């Protein structure tokens, strides 16, 4: 590892950090009606928008997110040295198919809803270490593809409990490079898989909150900063229930997060909409909130230091049916205006 990157336990501190050159966020109709509607670069008015299947629609969203990020960065696809992408579908086909169109060297990632941040961390590491000049990371999800894969057919009349979450129909992409820019990726913490034995696949927040608490604790300790260092700490998709549990868990570890400066992407994206129960989830949630709303606020100077700790539940429909518990993971990345 070059001298520009310091390893502290499970964290990397980038002394010559990579730049977040451009970012884009794409959403579906429901996301557009939410409080962050204005922060999306493009909104579809229909969940299928004339595509033959919801899966093809998910891929199309990812593709558009990537194309828009490339356009915003003022470059062409061939300038991207490496492309890192992930989604929730089996064998991450939406990502593979997007990589097929872009025809750039590709890494497929899976960290469930934490995929966007995993991609951002690895992209930054490549650039900061000199292994790449320009990288692109992306992630996306679609409510209808996730629902049919992980739960029931979309039109099946199943009564959902209050702690369940709604998969976001959205995608986000970011371009990271070694050139000058406003937003720098200054530190990252790679999460450990934490599993406290939750088997209820409707309670993802409860399954992932311990991983979030574990990563935040490690990050603050290894970077040597307190939670106040950040203007905003963002958790990815814990939802309202998981957010409360996370605050509780951190409090027990002696870390008090200021409630005004700790937001969950899942709570943010749909506001108070009761139809989504505890909030949003899915790869596209943290991707579109980070690369849309948060990116804009950083660019506008409303925020200076943000820690995004995305959380993922590493279960499959098979593991769930076989009554295996739900392992959680959380990767954190620090974005700062320098």
């Amino acid at each position, binding site marked *: 590892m070059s001298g520009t990157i310091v390893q502290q336990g499970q964290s990397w501190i980038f002394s010559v950090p990579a730049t977040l050159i451009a970012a884009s966020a794409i959403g579906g109709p429901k996301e557009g009606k939410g409080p962050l509607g204005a922060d999306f670069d493009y909104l579809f008015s229909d969940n299928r928008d004339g595509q033959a299947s919801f899966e093809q629609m998910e891929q199309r969203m990812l593709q558009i997110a990537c194309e828009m990020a490339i356009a915003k960065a003022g470059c062409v696809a061939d300038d991207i040295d490496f492309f890192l992408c992930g989604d929730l579908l089996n064998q991450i086909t939406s990502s593979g198919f997007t990589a097929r169109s872009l025809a750039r060297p590709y890494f497929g990632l899976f960290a469930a809803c934490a995929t966007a941040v995993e991609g951002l961390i690895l992209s930054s590491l490549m650039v900061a270490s000199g292994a790449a000049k320009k990288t692109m990371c992306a992630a996306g999800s679609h409510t209808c593809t996730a629902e049919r894969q992980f739960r029931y057919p979309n*039109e099946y*009349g199943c009564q959902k409990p209050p702690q369940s979450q709604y998969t976001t129909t959205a995608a986000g992409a970011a371009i990271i490079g070694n050139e000058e820019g406003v937003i720098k990726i200054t530190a990252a913490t790679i999460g450990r898989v934490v599993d406290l034995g939750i088997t209820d696949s409707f309670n993802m927040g*409860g399954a992932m909150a311990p991983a979030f608490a574990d990563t935040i604790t490690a990050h603050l300790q290894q970077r040597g900063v307190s939670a106040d260092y950040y203007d905003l700490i963002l958790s990815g998709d814990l939802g*309202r229930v998981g957010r409360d549990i996370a605050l*509780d868990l951190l409090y027990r570890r002696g870390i008090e997060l200021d409630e005004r400066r700790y937001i969950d992407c899942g709570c943010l994206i749909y506001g108070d909409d009761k139809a989504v129960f*505890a909030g949003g989830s899915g790869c596209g949630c943290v991707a579109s909130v980070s690369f849309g709303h948060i990116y804009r606020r950083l660019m506008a100077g409303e925020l200076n230091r943000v820690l995004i700790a995305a959380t993922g539940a590493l279960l499959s429909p098979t593991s769930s049916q076989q009554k295996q518990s739900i392992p959680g993971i959380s990767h954190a990345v620090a974005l700062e205006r320098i």
Partner: protein
Amino acid sequence: MVKKPKVASWYDPIIKSHGTPRPLAKNCLAAFCFGGALCAVAQFFQLLISQIAGVSDKDAAAIVMIIVIALAALLTGLGVFDKIAQQVGAGLAVPITGFANSIASSTLEFKSEGYVLGSGCNGFKLAGAVIFFGIGSAVVVALIALILGLV
């Protein structure tokens, strides 16, 4: 079958202290009222049909059931059924409407994988369990009745 893992003993009280539990009383009441009303309306039409059309009670029951199944499938296709089911739960799941919805929703869902390998193979994905255990238990009950000489 794998044994279900337990939630870590220290974490169990924390997870239970957050979030709202399922509103069981409200759900039961909504299911009771809606399910009861649905059956009462169906019963009314059954009597009406047998009176007006002069068909037997058994035939009138079959006609009403066909209508209810068709309506449930139609509402599934229109994307309304799941929204009502979220409110009334078992009130729609227990009557034959739930069975109709499970087949209609699965058939619709797998249309994108083709008529044969998609809808054809998966139409009974959810309803299959009902048929499997329905037929299975019928066989067992029939055997018991046969042995006891009740038939």
